[in-house]
């Protein structure tokens, strides 16, 4: 697949000396849902703002559909729709007027049929004559999406689309994003809800402290780093892991009641679990319950972010 957005060596530093982005390289494939994941202050919004033309980069280049975002900004920006994190709206404008305005701003001829379709798709048609100030937060967010879609962009940026949105609405939003992708729009969303990335993204990029730490197919990422663990809740506590179990990666939890076996679900000996249980039985260890757990994107993410921190600490020392 071809890259619809190509970020090359983009750096951003402020006069204060703060470096928001350290030479970021990133390629977004056409038609994918890409989740940019990172803690608050990681540089997600800065990166999006630079791509969309709100912030000037200190260094580096961005191509949107092969067009330079600075030199050919008209062509580049025409391809992009942006839904910022904050709900910036004109309080007194009507829904339909503000969506039409957005289309005009991008130099497109008026198209009432299209605007109607967008508003209907976003369940806003009934509210088309309402003033922005009358709408709830969730509706405002949808109006902002409608505005971003009004000029028929190829790429849609959603900066924290579900921040402060309740569970129901969040699910609606996810369904909406999928429908949009089905129409061929490439979607880049930032989030700090891991759940969201796990649920929706084709690929995940993790950004922390202005550095992209990893970009990977979500499934691959889960597979590669998806560790499982089996915990046996023992009937009687142990003082140490019996030496007969040393062939497995087994640890005893504090208290001596839980025996945890960490393994890779997808590689290695497929009989490892049954072999372990057999051995446990042979040793006469009773257990009244057992549980398994698969690491989520969240664990992977937390692990990555920590790793990065540790590495930097070491480098500094």
């Amino acid at each position, binding site marked *: 697949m071809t890259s619809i957005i190509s970020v090359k060596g983009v750096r951003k530093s*402020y006069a204060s000396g703060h470096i928001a982005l350290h030479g970021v390289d990133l390629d977004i494939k056409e038609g994918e849902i890409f989740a940019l994941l990172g803690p608050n202050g990681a540089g997600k919004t800065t990166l999006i*703002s630079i791509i*969309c*033309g*709100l*912030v*000037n980069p200190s260094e580096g280049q961005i191509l949107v559909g092969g067009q330079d975002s600075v030199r*050919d*900004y*008209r*062509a580049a*920006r*025409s391809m*992009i729709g*942006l839904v*910022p994190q*904050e709900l*910036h*709206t*004109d*309080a*007194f404008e009507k829904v339909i*007027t503000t969506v039409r*305005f*957005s*289309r*005009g*701003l*991008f*130099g*497109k*001829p008026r198209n009432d049929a299209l605007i109607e379709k967008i508003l209907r798709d976003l369940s806003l048609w009934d509210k088309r004559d309402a003033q922005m100030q009358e709408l709830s937060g969730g509706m405002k967010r949808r109006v902002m999406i409608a*505005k971003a879609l009004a000029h028929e962009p190829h790429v849609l940026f959603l900066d924290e689309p579900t921040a402060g949105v309740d569970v129901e609405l969040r699910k609606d939003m996810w369904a909406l994003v999928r429908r949009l992708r089905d129409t061929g729009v490439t979607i880049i969303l930032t989030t700090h809800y891991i759940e969201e990335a796990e649920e929706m993204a084709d690929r995940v990029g993790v950004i922390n402290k202005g550095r992209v730490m990893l970009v990977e197919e979500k499934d691959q990422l889960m597979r590669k780093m998806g560790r499982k663990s089996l915990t046996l809740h023992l009937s009687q506590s142990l003082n140490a892991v019996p030496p007969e179990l040393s062939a497995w990666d087994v640890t005893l939890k504090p208290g001596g009641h839980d025996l945890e076996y960490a393994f890779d679900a997808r590689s290695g000996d497929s009989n490892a679990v049954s072999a372990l249980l057999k051995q446990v039985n042979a040793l006469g260890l009773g257990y009244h319950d057992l549980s398994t757990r698969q690491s989520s994107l969240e664990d992977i993410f937390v692990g990555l972010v920590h790793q990065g921190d540790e590495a930097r600490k070491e480098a500094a020392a």
Partner: protein
Amino acid sequence: MNGPSGMNWRGISAIYGFELHRFRRTFWTSLMTPVITTTLYFIVFGSAIGSRMNEIDGIPYGAFIVPGLIMLSMLQESIFNASFGIYMPRWTGTIYEILSAPLSPLETVIAYVGAAATKSMIVGLVIFATAHLFVDVTVVHPLAMLAFMLVIAISFCLFGFILGLWAKSFEQLQFVPLLVIMPMTFLGGAFYTISMLPEPWRTITLFNPVIYLISGFRWTFFGQGDVSLGISLSVIAAMLAACTGIIIWMFRTGYRLKK
């Protein structure tokens, strides 16, 4: 799209329309305010005081103050509307859409300044019409009068646009019109000719650019002004050039627009 090299006229018209729509929402207040203010001036200066004043350079005092009053309102309106027009989206955050749109700086300025200047022209013409209710005014050079109004409106809207980009707060937005422009316009010869002033005020007044604007504008009405028409036009041209230069610099550096 209008092609990569062409102007984004639809974008310009979207902003222009948005701004005029904003004015329409406050149509009566924004139109009645200058009309009422001017009426008060005419009552106080034109009728009450003017009846006891001599003619100035052969012009009845009531008529003499008309160009100055139009200019006074237009300067205030231009600065206020243009600064507010660009400051509001910065303040509410809706500027993100303007910045992410395929609009050049020139197009952005044309749209905002064009809309503000349109409103200033309307206000100026309404005051001109109102003046006829109180005094007899004949205009010697009507076309020049309109051209003058337009150029002044554009210049001060550009100035207002700069102010709106520069201001970090509503306080700063009010500060300049109130503390700088207001005294300058009042001391700019709206109600008197500079020859009526004693020294050293007469010399000091010559440093006030508004003098040249009002004098030039008065020339279009009566065929005569305080200073020569050439100087008036030069001052306006210089102002236009300075404001344009500052705006070009602001956009090039992303000043207060882009972090």
